[in-house]
């Protein structure tokens, strides 16, 4: 390893009033110019560790702190946070909260002003930092006008302007669409390679970390479980699964196949995986899965829009003539980059938006003529952030809220509360305050409250944002159960890799129009359309297409496989 820049030595830390330690006997060294990825399930202590590098933990929070952290020779217990800020740049998960100025240049200037840098030098540094994150030319724009990826790059520039040796990023892409996430990873990679800035990046984005990080540290319950190169850590698929983490799909595929590289190791990056496939030439399953036959729907559509246009007051044309029918019992995924019009479309079904032109029907009725409260009884809408959807004193009251207001008898309210809390595994939490629960559980409280209305359709808008892999699957499992009960399910998400096994039909949106409406096997393999709206197909899809290219006499869509399990089964089956 290169010369140590930051040393965490035997650190244990307990937040005030917390029952257990957030970090326990943790030792870690980050070398100069190194790119270290930090992985671990929710609650593993990643954020606490990130905040320990610039002294926020424990200087801001207090609590009990043992051991020491030294960055560029400064002890984080002895040096004030403002002094450490010159050496450590911090980028947090939420792009909104960390941007505090009203123009891009003022945002970058803020920290420089705080350290009393002369104006001329400040201007130089701002120009340099904005150039480094490719935001030159946006100096006078309001940060709220930037896209999610640009906002995070601005947050990086603000940290970068201090010329730090270490940039600490805590899940910087968790709230971004694939384009934004790609922008952030590319920028961080460039800063690391070209300017030699050491990076510590906590993330669930396995494919990107495998691509860019030099080293990975796996944290669980405040302790380091393992650390090593990305190849070493991501090839330990069992260990990752044991900690509810998701390895890159390439790693899972070759783990199931059993090896792949000449040295017998599992490839963890896509290009390694593709090369490994070349060596498997010819060993393919003879019978790949067929595309499902077209489904006919005898029932009239439950949700329907015809030639729907929506223009926001600022002139943004969010929907341009969208027509779509969703029939009872369907499970539909709506995907597309930010600004593609997904949420705008969905919000019309609840009359949360008024169509500029066109017709919206729910169960055959004109949705524009019905109040949101009436539509919500037929169509449940689980919006993105659970925290702004909780307003009751207990979990039980949260679920009973709507039922009381709709005038249900007390015994019926009780029946529905118990039934829904039980179905979501929340019955033991009934008397707790919703905000006392972890984020994943808070999302389930919102779902339980919406299901209490017994809607015919449930729409999940980005339900997996901010959730770890396990949390995301918990929510999707609920959606599957509801689907099996006959409900119509619509999910909006950027995380395509999560959806095989759940969604049947995929609607790809881009720039206010529907680019593609097809069964999932067909849609995920239409790389051109996905690319047009900046969606990244799961690695398994790309591997499946590579398989097809190697298979004699077959087209690219001959293997419409979606998951590492399917790809591996195909290869293993062929070899067998």
């Amino acid at each position, binding site marked *: 390893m290169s010369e140590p820049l930051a040393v965490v030595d035997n650190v244990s830390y307990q937040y005030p009033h917390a029952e257990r330690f957030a970090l326990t006997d943790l030792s870690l060294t980050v070398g100069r110019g190194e790119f270290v990825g930090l992985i671990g399930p929710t609650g593993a202590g990643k954020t606490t560790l990130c905040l320990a590098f610039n002294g926020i933990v424990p200087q*801001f929070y207090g609590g009990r702190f043992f051991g020491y952290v030294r960055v560029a020779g400064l002890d984080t217990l002895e040096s004030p946070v*403002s002094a450490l800020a010159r050496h450590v740049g911090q980028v947090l998960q939420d792009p909104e909260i960390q941007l505090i100025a009203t123009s891009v240049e003022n945002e970058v*200037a803020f920290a420089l002003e*705080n350290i009393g840098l002369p104006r001329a030098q400040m201007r130089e540094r701002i120009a340099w930092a904005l150039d480094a994150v490719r935001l030159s030319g946006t100096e006078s724009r*309001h940060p709220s006008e930037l896209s999610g990826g640009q906002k995070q790059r601005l947050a990086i520039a603000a940290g970068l302007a201090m010329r730090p040796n270490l940039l600490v990023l805590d899940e910087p892409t968790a709230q971004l669409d694939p384009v934004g996430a790609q922008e952030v990873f590319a920028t961080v990679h460039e800063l690391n390679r070209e300017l030699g800035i050491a990076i510590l990046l906590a993330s669930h984005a396995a494919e990107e970390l495998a691509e860019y990080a030099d080293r990975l540290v796996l944290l669980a319950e405040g302790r380091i479980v393992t650390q090593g190169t990305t190849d070493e850590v991501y090839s330990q698929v069992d260990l990752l699964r044991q900690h509810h983490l998701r390895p890159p799909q390439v790693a899972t595929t070759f783990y199931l196949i059993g090896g792949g590289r000449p040295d017998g190791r599992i490839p963890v990056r896509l290009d390694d995986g593709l090369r490994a496939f070349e060596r498997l030439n010819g060993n393919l399953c003879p019978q790949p899965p067929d595309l499902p036959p077209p489904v006919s729907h005898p029932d009239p559509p439950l949700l329907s829009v015809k030639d729907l246009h929506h223009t926001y007051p600022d002139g943004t044309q969010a929907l341009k003539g969208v027509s779509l029918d969703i029939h009872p019992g369907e499970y539909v995924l709506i995907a597309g980059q930010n600004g593609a019009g997904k949420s705008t479309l969905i919000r019309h079904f609840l009359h949360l938006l008024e169509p500029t032109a066109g017709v919206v029907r729910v169960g055959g009725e004109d949705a524009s003529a019905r*109040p949101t409260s009436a539509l919500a009884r037929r169509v449940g809408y689980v919006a993105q952030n659970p925290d702004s959807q*909780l307003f009751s004193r207990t979990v039980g009251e949260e679920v009973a809220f709507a039922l009381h207001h709709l005038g249900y008898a007390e015994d019926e309210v009780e029946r529905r509360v118990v039934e829904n809390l039980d179905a979501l595994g929340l019955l033991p939490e009934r008397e707790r305050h919703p905000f006392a629960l972890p984020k994943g559980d808070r999302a389930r409280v919102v779902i339980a409250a919406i299901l209490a*209305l017994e809607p015919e359709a449930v729409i999940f808008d980005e339900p997996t944002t901010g959730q770890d892999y396990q949390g995301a699957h918990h929510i999707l499992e609920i959606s599957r159960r509801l689907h099996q009960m006959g409900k119509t399910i619509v999910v909006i998400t950027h995380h395509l890799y999560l959806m095989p096994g759940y969604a049947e039909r995929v609607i790809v949106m881009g720039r206010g129009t529907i680019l593609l409406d097809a069964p999932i096997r067909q849609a995920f393999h239409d790389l051109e359309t996905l690319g047009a709206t900046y969606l990244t197909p799961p690695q398994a899809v790309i591997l499946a297409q590579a398989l097809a290219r190697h298979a004699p006499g077959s087209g690219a869509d001959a293997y419409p496989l979606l998951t590492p399990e399917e790809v591996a089964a195909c290869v293993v089956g062929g070899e067998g």
Partner: protein
Amino acid sequence: MGLLKFQTVGRDSIFTRLDFRVKLVMMIALTVIAFVWESPLLQIGLCAAVVLATLLAGVRLSYLRTVLLVMLPFYLFLLVTMGLFNVAQVRSLLGREELTYLYRLPADWWLVGGVGFTLEGLLYGVNIVFKTLTMALVIPLVIFTTDVDHIVTSLVRAHVPYSVAFVFSATLRFFPVLLIEAQSIIEAQRLRGLAVESMGLLRRARVYARIAVPLILSSLVKSQQLEIVLQSKAFSTNPDRTYLHESTLHTADYLAMAFFVLLVVAAAAAYFGLGVGRFGGPLDFIHR
């Protein structure tokens, strides 16, 4: 993102170009004048000028409409009570006993029987309505036309401590965030089948009251996050702090400042010397 910037007008005008300190002087001058004047006619004129200025500055009509809608019940109550009960004050201000009665309540009504609704009382109410409206509308005229970052540099130049200026600007920044949060909670309630639109006022108020708890909780979380962000950016109230932008007063700023100071002086002279601005003063149409 519209709401995050609702405090900032999109239009470039003389108001966006003036320094914040000038606008502060303007706000103080207009507030003092509105406070001192009692003439309904002059108050209407002053208020009309402020409304015109806010519209020219690009403050949205919908915002003004919201302010009016919020104030309307208070104003109606004020006009009625002033017309009915503000007798002694208007008699003393006008220096005469007889007032113009527009309507008298039937004599046999309990407690209020025989009480009359006077034109003079009503006009005094009109004066208060427009006085408060001027004071309420001059604030968006000043705040909405100034970039929050400029407010800070301007206040610091006016020798306001940086910590105070920052708290002021942070509050302004926080307000739209809270508004967005409140809207999402109300929306979440509607999505639970709550027909807020068909509820009576009391029931609606009870439902809205539920917003307070999550709003306070989320404010606490957000202010803690903000503190972390500030600390990470080496925030300090060090007097050696530097500023990217300088807040300098130009000739137009000095001229505007002088204008508003002179306006107060002139208004004071006219008020005390000629009685202009008094209730029933020379420019008013209420005879003494």
